[in-house]
């Protein structure tokens, strides 16, 4: 049984590889985040919001699970 939390480790792994590839771009003057009209800043912001809501959702999931368990006993 794979611990679901370990799957989350894949996220930084994927992001790191992306970051490594981005270094090959010829954007050394502004840096990756400031390239393409700073649109990647919006990407990070949107991902932050998504992560926040997913965290909130998973906490609710856990709350409901423990409630269901208590109901059976």
């Amino acid at each position, binding site marked *: 049984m794979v611990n679901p939390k370990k799957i989350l480790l894949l996220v930084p792994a994927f992001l790191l590889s992306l970051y490594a590839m981005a270094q090959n771009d010829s954007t050394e003057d502004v840096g990756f*985040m*400031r390239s*393409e*009209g*700073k*649109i990647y*800043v*919006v990407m*990070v*912001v*949107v991902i*932050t*919001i998504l992560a*926040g*809501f997913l965290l*909130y*959702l998973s906490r*609710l999931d856990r*709350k*409901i699970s423990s*409630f269901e368990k*208590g*109901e059976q006993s």
Partner: protein
Amino acid sequence: MIRKSWWKVLSVVLLIYTFTAGFLIKVPHVGNLYGSIRNFFFHVPMWFGMMVLFMVSVIYAIKHLRKPNINSDIYSREYAKTGIVYGVLGLVTGSVWASFTWGEAWSNDPKQLLAAIALLIYVAYFILRNSIPDIDKRARIGAVYNIFACAMLFPTLWIIPRMVESLHPGGQGVEGNPGMGGKDLDPAMRIVFWPAVIGWTLLGVWMTTLRIRLELLKEKQPING
């Protein structure tokens, strides 16, 4: 079913619109923002959503004080919780945005500081609640404190940031209206911004109602499950 949950559909539609139009429309050129001005559709609605959720929370707090009822206490508490989530997301997205426009994630801008203070006041609401073992007392004192916390929102988020120099729009010596965007908000951005605010806010209400439903179920449970 669809008649009761039309607003959930509306939330989804508005958010899909936000995520497509928000990235596609032509945006004005403002300072060194460039494309990151599109954060306006994601960062700012977090704060608007937080305001609405805290407002709903205080309405239920007043309701509870007028006529003590465990249900209105549950409503008040859960709306405040989601409000804090929105506020924290607003702070985090704001500092990401600031890193690449103002140069650092936290520049002690008055609005940053005061928004953090406003959130801490609401965190204290939960600390206060959890420190009182008696359920009725907890609900009543919590409701009174909730009104105080709500009253602090206005000076911290709307009034003081306008009176001092600020990196945010709307401070002294900076163009723009910090609240509504008003006449300074580009018309093209306005047609995405307001749907975005409504969509994000309805999503917050949706998440809150799920938690409320769970809490109400727990309440019905004999001897608390």
